[in-house]
């Protein structure tokens, strides 16, 4: 039996096939559909969550490998939808279709937790695993800078 702490709550996943990637446990078993499926092979970042605070692609992460670990999803990123990145994202009008944006935000949040004044290169490195087919990259970069300023 696998136990995870998800957005602060202890969850025992007794009747879930332990080979199931965390992505599908979140989406199908727990109804946390904010985390998205885009490729299923760690290529696109749509499924980015925080695993013990680190940005992680959870589509290729069987839950049996992360027993006892702590998971944060978009649903747990902020108390009142007020993470500076969420505010900067709305302010800059970053989303187009919006599908990749949860993954983008989770990668960006992990970056800013470590680095409160990232350069463009830092951003490009931290965000390189997150594809956006709509092409919102330039706004993502400027919104991360804006959120970093707001957090300092």
């Amino acid at each position, binding site marked *: 039996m696998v136990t995870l702490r998800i957005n602060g709550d202890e969850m025992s996943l007794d009747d879930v*096939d332990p*080979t*199931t*990637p965390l992505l*599908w446990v979140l*989406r*199908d*078993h727990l*109804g*946390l*559909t*904010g*985390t*998205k*499926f*885009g*490729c*299923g*092979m760690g*290529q*696109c970042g*749509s499924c980015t969550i925080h695993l013990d605070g680190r940005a992680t692609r959870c589509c290729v992460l069987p839950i049996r490998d992360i027993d006892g670990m702590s998971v944060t*999803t*978009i*649903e747990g990123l902020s108390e009142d*939808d007020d993470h500076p*990145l*969420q505010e900067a*994202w*709305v302010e800059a*009008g970053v*989303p*187009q*279709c*919006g*599908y*990749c*944006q*949860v993954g983008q*935000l989770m990668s960006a949040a992990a970056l800013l937790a470590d680095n409160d004044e990232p350069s*463009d290169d830092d*951003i*490009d*490195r931290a*965000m*390189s695993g*997150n*594809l*956006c*087919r*709509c*092409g*919102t*990259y*330039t*706004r*993502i*970069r400027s919104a991360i800078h804006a959120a970093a300023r707001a957090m300092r």
Partner: protein
Amino acid sequence: MTTTSIDPAPQGVMNVSRRGFLGGLVGAGSFVLGASWPLASARAASVNEAFAPNVFLAIAPSGVVTIIAHRSEMGTGIRTSLPMVVADELGALWERVTIEQAPGDRSFGSQNTDGSRSIRRFYDVMRVAGASARNMLERAAAARWNVAHTECTTRGHEVVHESTNRTLPFGDLVADAIALDPPAAEDLRYRTRSELNYVGKGVPITDGQDIVTGRATFGIDATLPGMKYASIERPPVLGGTVRAYDATATLAVPGVERVIELSSSTAPHAFKPLGGLAVIGTSTWATLRGRQALEVEWDDGANASYSSETYDAALLASAQAGGRVVRDEGDVDAAFADATRTVEANYELPLLSHAPMEPPCALARVTDDLCEVWAPTQNPQTAQDMLAGEFGLSRDQVVVHVTLLGGGFGRKSKADFVVEAARLAREVGAPVKVTWTREDDVRHDYYHAVSALSMKAALNGDDDVTALRMSTAFPSISTTFDPTARHGSDGELGQGFSDVPFAVPNIRVENGEARGHVRIGWLRSVANIYHAFGVSTFVDELAAARGRDPFEHWLSMLGTDRDLALGDFYSNYGEPLERYPYDIKRLRAVGQLAADRAEWGRDLPRGRGLGFAAHRSFLASVAVVAEVDVTQDGQLTIPRIDMAVDCGLAVHPDRVRSQMEGAAVFGAGVALAGEITAKDGRIEQSNFHDYKIPRIYEAPQDVRVHLVESGELPGGVGEPGVPPIAPAICNAVFAATGKRIRRLPLARHDLSWS
């Protein structure tokens, strides 16, 4: 600045409050208005669009204004922009507007969200809807005050009587307005540009907050109690069938419940599901594991002969041979016979896949007399029709709920994935959600056509260009609907090819034959992608051959300012040329604006270069200056893109900008690495590791969008940014390295220099 004219006059506005058109969407007792609108162009009319009521708004006694978004939201912001037009004409406060997404229903007019048409087809309709409602509220208030309604106006969700400073909130007038007859067309008054608060300025997109909190509901997020999951192994070759299969191991996977064989699609494949073997289970993961364990033998059928290597060579030969003459002016053969010299080049572009970040998916529930689906569809009415036909139901027994789309780009206007879910739901007797994997998506798309172009110019003793002979060949979208089709449609050929705008006395445009072996569909800007690449690269090659600056040379090729005269072969995106002329002056102006803002001609070190391309499509013109940086060992980056845009009136300028920024990345994807190939009928790519789309560090680093201030009729926005990007990038590569790119993508080429 002038305002766009409302033309032709509105017809058939009716007060439908008591008719319940909106069903459960808005509360009882609301004031509901419908507007119908004659089509501007019969030539473009689809059956869907003819004289149908096509917009609805409702005002509740509480004052809440509900506006129906009837077009699909896939990232353009249309779910915000069109309702915003209604709210502005009405005089509503945006904070007190609620937006409801319409299900598929003929009452709304066409909901087929493609062709960059939503604003151009519905901007006027939305104004009629808003202005008609305002007129009725003004009359209701005027009756209370015993004044002439022409002395009243609306502002801030209230009717205002200016001279006496009296106001009445919208909600208080609902009961009175319900009893009124709608205004005659000639009594409608539209706000002038200076009276508008939202149009031309914009509001934040309505789904922004839901998107950044993960609450936004896309198709993949739809659920129903008791829902089963399905994953489908489809025939690897189009038209292939299951010869034999063994599902023993699949059925042993925990959570797998059934394997269902679906009949294979036969040509014409149109929007039909492909068939295959569906694994049904209690979770997505169970179905994916079940599929892995499946053993299938396929009969591949005739398309197994299809391999890109041989096909592409034949396609180029077909382009060179030409055949069907589409446009013929002057005497091209005589001009070539008299030429002092000629310039010739061929261009080749591969198949492309849409790869929206949300793959195709749908949820369905089917009973004997009701079929309900939830799907990220660009075209709910076609889905509705197909499902009605599938189950022998009437249209009102089929409800297509439109979710948000995690990208569409043309892929999600086909209903194949929706029908899959419904077939399985009926077979299983429970709600079923079908989710395509990325591999399914890349291998079974409606691909953007592979293409080949042959371009030739004749020059005389003065080095004037005296003739152009241009030929294109590509498997037409028509092949998806008619397997005997061999030529492009007028629509495809008119996407940047038969409408070549250059002032050359002798021009012949031809189209060679090509067959389809995979489903060919439309992808963001469609045939403009390859035609703009061929034309804009060739004109750059001509400049080089003539020793001229590429931008100055392009300007000179345009000739005098005029409306381009084009014959019956040209469909102008379904609009008459009198209404939306091909205006050389406007095209020239965007070119100049891009060149000015990009500081065309600025000094750059070796390995850096600027490239220019400009293209009119979907009734908008976009000019691009791309700056590339190529290291000596051939690593390419795109530090900057300048895009000048004339789309007529920019209803929501920020969303126009965001579409252009996105188009720069989409176009860069076409240039850099986008390539789908087939071998023995099977698509060779499968996921983002081998079908590469730009990552943040590969995409243009700085995209500067320069909008032409315009009060002209709105043109398209979603697509026109894409076509000039790839040729501008490749022309910049030539400027930087001297290497001419005639075959995309760039990933095929060694760009190193010394």
